[in-house]
């Protein structure tokens, strides 16, 4: 195979990486860049634990060839925190609402929550459920996750609900 050098900006940092043409973005992020927040779940694009943002768009990184996103701007769960190091409101809300159990779906869920709020700052519950339709969770039953994302909608202070 002809290896290729690609340029990826990940969470604001530029990286030049030598990859094989068949390398998947999820594996490059995890193994080459050490960003293990993005999870490898099913490998077939059906669980969305591998969710990242590529040029502002949520994609399944397990179905994305790294060479296909050369020169792209990528945001992973590690990139959600604020410049001062504090967590994104979505991440805080997940903590406050007990929306994390095993934590495996959490990065993907949080990314989709952030993706939704970027596009629609005041989503309804059904809009939230629609947006995370592709993200599987085996632990929580989704209720706490939806509540967490809903608590971040415009004009509402994230608040703990126990």
């Amino acid at each position: 195979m002809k290896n290729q050098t690609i340029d990826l900006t990940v969470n604001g940092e530029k990286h030049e990486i030598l990859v094989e043409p068949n390398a998947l973005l999820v594996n490059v992020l995890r193994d080459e860049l050490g960003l293990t927040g993005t999870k490898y779940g099913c490998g077939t694009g059906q669980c969305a634990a591998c969710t990242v943002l590529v040029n502002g768009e949520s994609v399944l990184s397990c179905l994305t060839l790294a060479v296909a996103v050369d020169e792209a701007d990528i945001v992973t769960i590690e990139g959600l925190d604020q410049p001062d190091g504090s967590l994104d409101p979505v991440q805080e809300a997940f903590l406050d609402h007990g929306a994390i159990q095993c934590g495996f779906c959490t990065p993907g869920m949080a990314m989709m929550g952030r993706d939704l709020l970027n596009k629609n700052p005041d989503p309804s519950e059904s809009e939230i459920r629609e947006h995370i339709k592709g993200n599987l969770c085996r632990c929580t039953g989704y209720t706490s996750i939806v509540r967490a994302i809903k608590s971040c909608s415009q004009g509402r202070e994230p608040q703990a609900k126990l």
Partner: protein
Amino acid sequence: MADIEYLAPRDLEEALKAMEEWKGRAKVIAGGTNLIPYMRAGWVSPELLIDFSGLKDLDFIKREDETLSIGALTTIAEVASSETLRSFSPILPNAAGHLGNPLCRNRATIGGNLANASPGADMAPPLLVLEASVHTERGGESSREIPLDQFFLGPNKTVLEQDEVITQISFPKPKDSATGSQTKFGLRNADALSIVNIAVMIEMEGKLCRKARVALCPLAPTPIRMYRVEETLEGNEITAELLDECGDMLKQEVTPRLVSIRASAEYRKVLSSVLFKRAVREALKGVET
């Protein structure tokens, strides 16, 4: 995944040249949402992947006079959210909104869905009732325009030659008096391979049905139009009796696979008949009296 070479052509000409050169040994990748799983499962083993996703000239939705054209590289998400398409017929954006999951739709393309030719291809039923055509290009050969109901040959098989690609899909603007309905019935709300995916379009003239189009999948090796049902509806008043007759006809004519995966053949037949009647009633609701 097996070793591959990768090429990201800068334009269609470069892409077609590569396809001609590597004929049979190369595969087009666009969104990759079908191709990557197939490759990882060992079902396809191209030597070269030709990445079409950078060919932005093939990503468009436009109307020219009475024809709607959609570039092959238009993502399913773009189809689902297109106000242009929705204003002409909501059945196409509706069907797009049910394909896969929200992330998959950001990358999957309408050309890819048709070229992949799954027996349950989500975009096929609405495009079939809209009487769409597939436009193709081949290096050094003349382009083709293929009516969609002549495009599919079998499961994952189309009339496309090994070095031929879809560039766009077009269909005539539906008459203002046309109404349609589309339903996807699956075992879950996302990532569902459909049990039945049906689209219907009708044009009424007073009490009589002037034109009817019915298409569904996966009730055969390919997505299909139900020509006999259409002929039975046309020219007649759509009574409950006629709908029952057409529903029974539909049940007789479809050929779902006998092996029960996700649903038995019997269940699919009965369900398709029920959803057909519901779809026609739904479409009739949209008819202005």
